[in-house]
């Protein structure tokens, strides 16, 4: 049985908050294996879309299909277990665990022992190698035993990506993964995303056009909760509507 070409599809997805509609009639198709970028001006509804896809918010209308299965009514944890994992726009780590433990929490699920309150904690050590490998990928290896609390902001973001990767997600939702990072980090993370994209699908929100231009296969532009344009970077960046609403005169290339 071959999996469908489209991994994620939304049909007429909408969300309104007390009469204000943040997302209206979004029809999104994310192709398997692609890096799909979601861009748009501030307040366009990108994060809201993510929240709907992961059920942190209840859609007001529409349907969400994952691998052809309707997941519109499933709970957040179940969706995560189906393989849709997200990162947050505002940093999300476990501050009082060590960096290594942070990653291990994510890896732990595949052991299936999360409810085994009688099992020794040493049984988790088998995960250390994999965790260190992931930390190496995001350049945090040397901080493995540091309390996460003490990391600078940018490093917390990197850790978050490592944690997300640990889930071996089929579809990864990244909300502004490079936000707040220095240039080197941005480049490294961009590269990292590109690398991990092999064999999985990525849907990301990003304001850094350099990142989008270099790795996104396909781009959807949202404005005021609705799709404004869609296509490759070349197509989208030439679209006058997009330029006016989003990119601005520098073509978004402000770095």
């Amino acid at each position: 049985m071959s999996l469908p070409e489209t991994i994620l599809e939304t049909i007429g997805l909408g969300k309104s908050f007390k009469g204000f509609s943040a997302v209206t009639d979004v029809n999104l198709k994310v192709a398997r294996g692609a890096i799909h970028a979601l861009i748009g001006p501030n307040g366009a509804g990108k994060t809201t879309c993510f929240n709907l896809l992961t059920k942190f918010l209840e859609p007001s209308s529409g349907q969400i299909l994952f691998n052809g299965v309707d997941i519109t009514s499933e709970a957040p944890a179940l969706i995560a277990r189906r393989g849709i994992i997200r990162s947050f726009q505002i940093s999300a780590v476990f501050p009082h665990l060590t960096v290594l433990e942070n990653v291990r929490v994510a890896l732990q699920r595949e052991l299936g022992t999360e409810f085994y309150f009688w099992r020794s904690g040493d049984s988790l050590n088998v995960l250390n190698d994999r965790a260190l490998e992931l930390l190496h990928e995001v350049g945090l290896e040397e901080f493995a035993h540091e309390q996460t609390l003490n990391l600078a902001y940018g490093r917390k973001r990197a850790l978050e990506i490592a944690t997300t990767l640990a889930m071996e997600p089929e579809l990864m939702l990244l909300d502004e993964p490079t936000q707040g990072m220095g240039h080197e980090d941005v480049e490294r993370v961009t590269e990292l995303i590109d690398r991990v994209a092999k064999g999985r699908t990525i849907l990301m929100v990003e304001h850094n056009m350099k990142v989008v231009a270099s790795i996104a296969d396909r781009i959807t532009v949202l404005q005021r909760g609705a799709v404004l344009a869609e296509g490759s970077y070349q197509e989208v960046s030439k679209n006058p509507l997009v330029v006016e609403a989003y990119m601005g005169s520098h073509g978004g290339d402000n770095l």
Partner: protein
Amino acid sequence: MKSFKFWLFLAILAVAIAAPFFAYPIFLMKILCFALFAAAFNLLLGYTGLLSFGHAAFFGGAGYCAGYLMRDMGVGPGGAIILGVLFAAALGALIGGLAIRRQGIYFSMITLALAQMFYFICLQAPASGGEDGFQGIPRGELFGLIDLQADLNLYYCVLATVLAGFLFISRIISSPFGQILKAIKENEPRAISLGYNVNRFKFLVFILSAALAGLAGAVQALVLGFETLTDVHWSMSGLVILMTLVGGVGTLAGPFVGSLVIVLLEHRVGEIGNFLAQITGVNWFNSLGESVTIVTGLIFIFCVMAFRRGLVGIFTKKQ
């Protein structure tokens, strides 16, 4: 470092085994029961970040249940304690099932409210004996083997039970399950997004904590031979918080130290006062005996202001 802890543990164990030859067995057993109670409570507060203000319900509830089974149904102490624990677990499932859906202070308030309802049920139910208390619980024989009438026999049984409870709790904390609990305590939405159904974890740990608190309560009822409303009143929930706080929240030894300090205080404040008056020459200390609440209050204030890491925290170095 690890071996130091191990030796310390052995030393404490040795003291515990020898203790009844020097001090009152019943008094010691009460300390042990409270230590287990506080440890069970700490499993929720210190390791999961849930402040339950209703743990007295499980402690006292299991005590009433086990007492009723032993006195009125003729169940042996072993069976009664097990059933008492199951009762506390069931009560925990009920209260926890409602409370865990809410966070922070709302969680605390729901546990308080439900425990308060349970208190009124105990107060009004004819079987509990109301203010008279549930008196005359027989000690009997443990599984028909050990005669518990002798204080020493009972003491070692209680010590073994409490020790088992402690080891069980420390295992829970370090288990894969415990690791997820810590993660939930730290950042709940992130734990959800990693695919963990946090409510199930909270539910399970709540039940475990309730059951262990119940174990402490049921054993205490057996030890004392009665069960009274004091044990289900909200001030008991406050007391267990105090014990945990005095000892050190989120430490393994904390609850034990805390219960030792508090029980000593409750029983000995008069003597302590006389002693202080003797060594300091300040006559006022002699009246300390009438003012347990004042002293308890001061300890509370002092711990919160100066000693937040508890007594145990003072002696363990910062990492």
